[in-house]
């Protein structure tokens, strides 16, 4: 992959860490001002995070106690009605927001550590290590995600911790590829070569000179992966592999299906959870894309894979592997 990086960005290329930080902080504001989609996406994400943080205080009712009639209609007391056991839907949704976001962010963290690490090692050291690691990535890329998750979750059991781990160890491939290609070109940049000739070791080069430069890309990738992780959690929950003791958006949808909310006409037990997933996904998508576009004008010509939100270059994927 012949990446051309925006060399003209003086703030990012500078050696002075203070100036670089200031410029990065400034560029976030610039990003939000110039791209309304980034502002919209960011606000959506922040609103959900605030709801999750305040969940203990703003849930109007308990989430494990019957507070009204089974499948009670939406009313002034219960804005979104009640579910199949008479639990308040608003409270369930707020609780679901919290747990779904925990799953999303924690699984993303796992996948960023694996994917970022592999991409970094692969791109930085190159040669045989690179070829080997990218081959492994290619194999994992082809194996379908959801069946592998089903197998892993069925074998290891479905506690919340396991779910996070299972999703995390499946989503790393895209990140590994994006980070690798970026690191590969960063390694050849003049300031890195200069630091190396001044005697900087691999560790120092990676942590002080390369990591700060890929950090924005990692952030963009994180935002996009959070949405996919939450999406995958709803799928696992629906297939009966969720943590039965936790309320997530996925488990709310699964409950509505299992207890036939559809044939009972109780749309309120089903619709809001799906809408929440969709709004969060769109928010993450808008923000992540905006960051990526701003980072690298060349990525504008890259495309979106179905369901994966993986951004890849126009030209075939083989070139980068060897």
């Amino acid at each position, binding site marked *: 992959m012949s990446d051309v990086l925006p060399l003209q960005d003086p703030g990012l290329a500078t050696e002075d860490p203070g100036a670089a930080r200031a410029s990065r902080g400034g560029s976030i504001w610039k990003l939000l001002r110039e791209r309304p989609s980034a502002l919209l996406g960011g606000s959506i994400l922040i609103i959900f995070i605030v709801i999750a943080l305040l969940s203990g205080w703003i849930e109007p009712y308990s989430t494990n106690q019957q507070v009204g009639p089974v499948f009670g209609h939406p009313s002034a007391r219960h804005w979104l009605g009640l579910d199949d056991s008479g639990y308040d839907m608003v409270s369930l949704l707020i609780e679901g927001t919290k747990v779904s976001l925990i799953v999303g962010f924690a699984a993303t963290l796992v996948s960023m550590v694996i994917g970022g690490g592999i991409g970094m090692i692969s791109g930085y050291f190159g040669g045989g290590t690179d070829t080997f690691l990218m081959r492994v990535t290619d194999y994992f890329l*082809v194996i379908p995600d959801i069946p592998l998750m089903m197998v892993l979750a069925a074998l290891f059991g479905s506690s919340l911790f396991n779910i996070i781990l299972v999703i995390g160890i499946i989503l790393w491939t895209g990140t590994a590829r994006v980070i690798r290609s970026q690191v590969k070109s960063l390694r050849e940049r003049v300031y890195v070569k200069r630091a190396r000739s001044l005697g900087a070791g691999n560790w120092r080069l990676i942590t002080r000179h390369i990591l700060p430069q890929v950090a924005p890309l990692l952030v963009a990738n994180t935002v996009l992966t959070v949405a996919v992780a939450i999406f995958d959690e709803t799928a696992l929950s629906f297939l009966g592999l969720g943590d039965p003791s936790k309320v997530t958006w996925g488990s709310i949808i699964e409950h509505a299906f299992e207890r036939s909310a*559809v044939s009972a006409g109780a749309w309120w037990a089903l619709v809001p959870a799906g809408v929440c997933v969709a709004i969060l*996904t769109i928010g993450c998508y808008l923000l992540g894309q905006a960051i990526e576009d701003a980072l690298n004008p060349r990525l504008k010509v890259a495309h979106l*894979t179905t369901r994966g939100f993986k951004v890849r270059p126009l030209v075939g994927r083989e070139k980068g592997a060897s």
Partner: protein
Amino acid sequence: MKRGDYVVKRVVFALITIFVAITLNFFLFRVLPGSAVTNIARVPHASPQLIHSLEREFGLDKPKWEQYLLYLDNLAHGNLGISFADQQPVSQHIRQDLANTIPMLSLGTVVAILMGLVSGVVAAWRRGGLGDYASSGVALFLYSFPTQWLGLMLLIFFAGLLPAGGMSNPFAFNQTYVQHLEDLLRHMILPSLTVALTLYGGYTLIVRSAMLETLGEDYVLTARAKGLSNWAVIRRHALRNAMLPTVTLIALGLGSIVGGFILVEVVFSWPGIGQAAYEAVVQRDYPMLQAVFLVLTISVVLFNLLADLLYLKLDPRVSE
């Protein structure tokens, strides 16, 4: 010959991937501590003799590498094991399931590709206009809804109009062939539509950005300067070149199609391979789960290979 090299490289890659999947399958199910097969031998209150005979039956008393060879040997003969749930050979079950899944999934995918092509081209052509915002917006929303949720919403909307689940009317008998086909199609509409809608969003976005890319190229400008009609410019120049990234991305997204149709089959109780996977999980029927995983992985790998070869046809430059 370079072209030949490319084909050989892709085929070898596909074969290795399949082999990796097979091996992964073996390790996941047999080698990890506390995994499926070891659990069988842990029957409560079992006498040592029973445990021993069970271990013998599943070959657990042999060393791991011998078990692995035995497993490969069985696979080579198409023997995927016996289902825990109904004591029938898994391979027979899976063949029937695949036969049920393929028509439903193909219908949905083809519809999605056609709709995605049309709306992606419209969105790119009317970039920044109302048509663009409308079709990209709808696409982004459809792309973001969980598959199972979309399916359930369709169930709500079409309740009473179309059958809600299964593949055929269980109460119909003495049907003619035409009646049977009609019944099957009626059952197929909702699951296929769900598959189509979930894929449609992604395809629209892919086609749109691929088209935007080619529409900015010099050869499109040349084609317009020659006085070609809009339609000819799109069809002969822009869309043809936009097919390259589109095919790659559709191939890369195959894995997610698999995830999607499993959910769809569960929602509509369509007796296909996704439903089989779900039941295997619920009943902890490991031989079945193992076989489903293998079959799905191999099909995705083969379709990827197909896309790679198609890519060669679309763009001879890739072999260089």
